[in-house]
């Protein structure tokens, strides 16, 4: 497989033209960011292609290994991590006072895509590390910040997020790990499972951010606290002390991301692991959710990054593989498969959806920058509401369709796609986890429908739909058949989103009046999320089309316009179908009783 080539041109288009970059770089602290944009992206692309990409396939084959409590990562990973850390990449979006470079999220998002596309199993480490850093930044004491953050940013230590327990996955209210206060710290006992990079051979210390309960904590979500539990305890002067009572009990054998160790972590087998409370007691889940938003967004980016990587491989293969005659030709001369309309369809599916997902992610990242840095409270709040609405969409929509796209990219290879040596099979196995961790698609959809739409009384949703209307008007203002065709499909999708949202709003009111059906509403939660995804993707492509129309004649923009047209014709109609599923499908989802699911499997004599 050819080396990874980052889509730098499309990234720059998104940053410089599609999102309001000017407004981002006028935020306090970002004044110089515009100057750094190109060289930073170029260097990240080179690092991804030269260092991370070559380790992707070998890392998959070798995998991480567990031996008596220690975990070794595949050949080359440790050195690559050192280069990654020495290169300062961990600190890209982090505050300068702790050794970071304080660059905006939109630049960080582009870099993140390159890391993920070139080596997802490697890049999961930095992804979770970033979550840990953000947790401490957000709610740690200043002493905790001084102690941990500079070393995490420098990559001297790494961080993990320890939420999941056997009985507590989607529902973290069920967390049982105990934390008992002793002097200036707590002693933790319990077991965490599925902890990404919970143990490895990169560095000497690993900083676990652990959810646990204190002795008198209330039941449920209101009784969970967040703790820092380092693998090695710290001496009062900050130097590394003894090994803490934390042990990796094993790693999982998984479908994909073989190089990324997924660890079972046992706390307190010898009496209790020393942990330090982060923020207020019993507020842990709240902190975790603020931070998880960032991680959810990153996993959404992870999804389309893999789709883009698989697409790049499929395109190269389709240009070379010769098979079957051209359907329109008279003579039976085999042609390169890229000349077959159906292969074109698969490649266009990849290209159009990836570009739409990328734009939606960059758009959300720009909102994130405003949410964090805009000095005007009203603008800040508005940006924050946009981030909250779009985070579950970026996470779940991108990962759901990316899995399908990687499958299509694999399909372009025919039988070779199913053969491991080809390389694309790995992307298919790797990408699948993105729909599960950091909250499954079902959980994201509940979040969108319950918290972000119903609880918000549709306010943010309505505002965003209003903005979509303006884009539609801009599109229709052009005397262009191309743009009009895009406008027609976008208008239908927007109508569908509006209708489904109104129906859900009305049904919500009926539920409050005891005449609606909450369960059948939630049966439509995932379709509602996908409806949002396809429509928002169409919104981004519509914005792109308007920009491209103004630069007709330049190859990049001509291709962009054609791609937007494809998206309108092939992806936007799905929005209409999902809206119908939301409004009419809930009852039938729940109509079959549990018994009826497998009536057909009983011994014939009993029927």
């Amino acid at each position, binding site marked *: 497989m050819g080396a990874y080539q980052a889509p730098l041109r499309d990234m720059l288009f998104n940053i410089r033209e599609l999102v309001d970059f000017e407004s981002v770089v006028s935020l306090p602290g970002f004044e110089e960011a515009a100057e750094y944009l190109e*060289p930073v992206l170029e260097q990240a692309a080179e690092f991804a292609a030269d260092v991370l990409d070559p380790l992707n396939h070998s890392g998959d084959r070798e995998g991480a290994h567990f031996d008596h409590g220690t975990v070794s990562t595949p050949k080359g990973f440790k050195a690559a991590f050192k280069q990654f850390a020495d290169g300062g990449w961990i600190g*890209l979006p982090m505050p300068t006072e702790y050794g970071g470079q304080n660059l905006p999220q939109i630049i960080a998002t582009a870099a993140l895509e390159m890391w993920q596309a070139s080596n997802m199993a490697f890049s999961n480490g930095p992804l979770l590390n970033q979550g840990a850093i953000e947790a401490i930044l957000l709610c740690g004491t200043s002493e905790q910040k001084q102690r941990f953050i500079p070393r995490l940013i420098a990559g001297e230590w790494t961080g993990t997020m320890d939420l999941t327990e056997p009985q507590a996955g989607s529902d973290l209210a069920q967390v049982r790990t105990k934390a008992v206060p002793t002097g200036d710290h707590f002693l933790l006992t319990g077991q965490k499972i599925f902890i990404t990079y919970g143990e490895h051979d990169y560095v000497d210390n690993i900083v676990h951010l652990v959810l646990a309960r204190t002795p008198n904590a209330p039941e449920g979500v209101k009784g969970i606290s967040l703790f820092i539990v380092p693998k090695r305890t710290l001496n009062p002067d900050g130097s590394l002390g003894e090994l803490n009572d934390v042990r990796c009990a094993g790693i999982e054998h998984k479908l994909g991301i073989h190089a990324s160790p997924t660890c079972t972590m046992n706390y307190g087998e010898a009496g209790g692991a020393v942990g330090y409370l982060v923020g207020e007691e019993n507020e842990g889940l709240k902190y975790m959710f603020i931070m998880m938003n960032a991680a959810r967004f990153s996993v959404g980016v992870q999804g389309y990054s893999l789709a883009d990587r698989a697409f790049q491989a499929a395109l190269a293969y389709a240009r070379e593989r010769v098979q079957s005659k051209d359907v329109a030709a008279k003579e039976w001369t085999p042609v390169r498969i890229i000349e077959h309309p159906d292969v074109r369809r698969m490649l266009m599916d990849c290209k159009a959806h990836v570009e739409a997902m990328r734009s939606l992610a960059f758009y959300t990242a720009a909102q994130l920058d405003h949410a964090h840095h805009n000095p005007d409270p009203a603008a800040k709040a508005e940006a924050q509401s946009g981030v909250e609405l779009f985070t579950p969409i970026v996470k779940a929509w991108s990962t759901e369709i990316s899995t399908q796209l990687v499958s299509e990219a694999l399909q372009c290879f025919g039988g070779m796609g199913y053969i491991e040596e080809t390389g694309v099979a790995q992307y298919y196995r790797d990408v699948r986890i993105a729909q599960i961790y950091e909250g499954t698609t079902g959980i994201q959809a509940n979040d969108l429908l319950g918290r972000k739409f119903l609880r918000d009384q549709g306010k943010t949703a309505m505002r965003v739909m209003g903005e979509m209307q303006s884009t539609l008007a801009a599109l229709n203002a052009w005397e262009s058949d191309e743009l009009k065709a895009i406008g027609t499909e976008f208008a239908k999708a927007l109508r569908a989103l509006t209708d489904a949202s109104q129906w859900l709003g009305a049904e919500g009111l009926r539920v409050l009046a005891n005449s609606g059906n909450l369960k059948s509403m939630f049966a439509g939660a995932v379709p509602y999320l996908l409806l949002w995804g396809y429509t928002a993707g169409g919104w981004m492509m519509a914005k792109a089309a308007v920009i491209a129309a103004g630069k007709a004649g330049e190859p990049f923009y001509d291709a962009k316009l054609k791609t937007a047209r494809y998206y309108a014709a092939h992806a936007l109609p799905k929005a209409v179908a999902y809206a119908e599923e939301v409004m009419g499908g809930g009852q039938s989802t729940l109509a079959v009783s549990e018994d009826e699911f497998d009536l057909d499997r009983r011994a014939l004599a009993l029927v």
Partner: protein
Amino acid sequence: MKIVVTVKLVPDTNADKRIDPATKRLVRTGVETVLNPFDEYAIEAALQLKEKLGGDTTVTIFSMAPETGKEIVRKALAMGADDAAMLSDAGLEGSDVWGTAYAMAQALKKVGFDLIVCGTQSTDAITGELPGALAEYLGVPGLTYLRKVDVDGTTVRGERETDNGYQKVVAELPALVSVTKSINEPRYPSLKGIMGAKKKTITTLSLAELALDRPVGSDGAKTEVLDLAAAPVRGKGRMVNASDGADGARIIVEFLREKKLL
């Protein structure tokens, strides 16, 4: 101590190169320009010396190239060099090795140096002659093809690669060295380096600022490319089918004898 690294800007090494039959020069338009990959080793060697020597040791990047190459020179700065100087002048177009070395020498005298570090060769013209010519014009000792280099006090020493081993060489400063690819593994620019490079100065010199006593550019060229021919297409390989291994081995040995390789 002031270390100057000379870097050449060359067309992307992976790109297809084309020579304009009329001018007999490399076509540089439409091809991405990059740092001569060999020169990354020279930069790395200089940075390692700076790290070792500390104090007031500085590393300056020097390139004779059109001003459009500034952003690429910045990449060298991102690796950690302190500043850069460029000699850019339309009058330099068409310089041969002789003219290039002469113009560079005059510019480097102006820039000042204790040690000059060159790469072994460029990836476009690949003569490998520039370092020697440059040392000559500067009137300083030239230690070329070093696989190891160290500076201590006022001397530079190193190991000079030869076909069958190496030579230990030493010279007084100021001096010039050229380093080979086996000397080190060049670092990737760090994020901090990339951002810091934006603030570093790149001074440009033009021919008017130099004390030249002979013409440079195509006027001053002592050599001229008369004709160009494509490299001969490699002959087809020969396939040998042998029923047993010994048979095959015999045929191969015969073949190698025939080619006088045995």
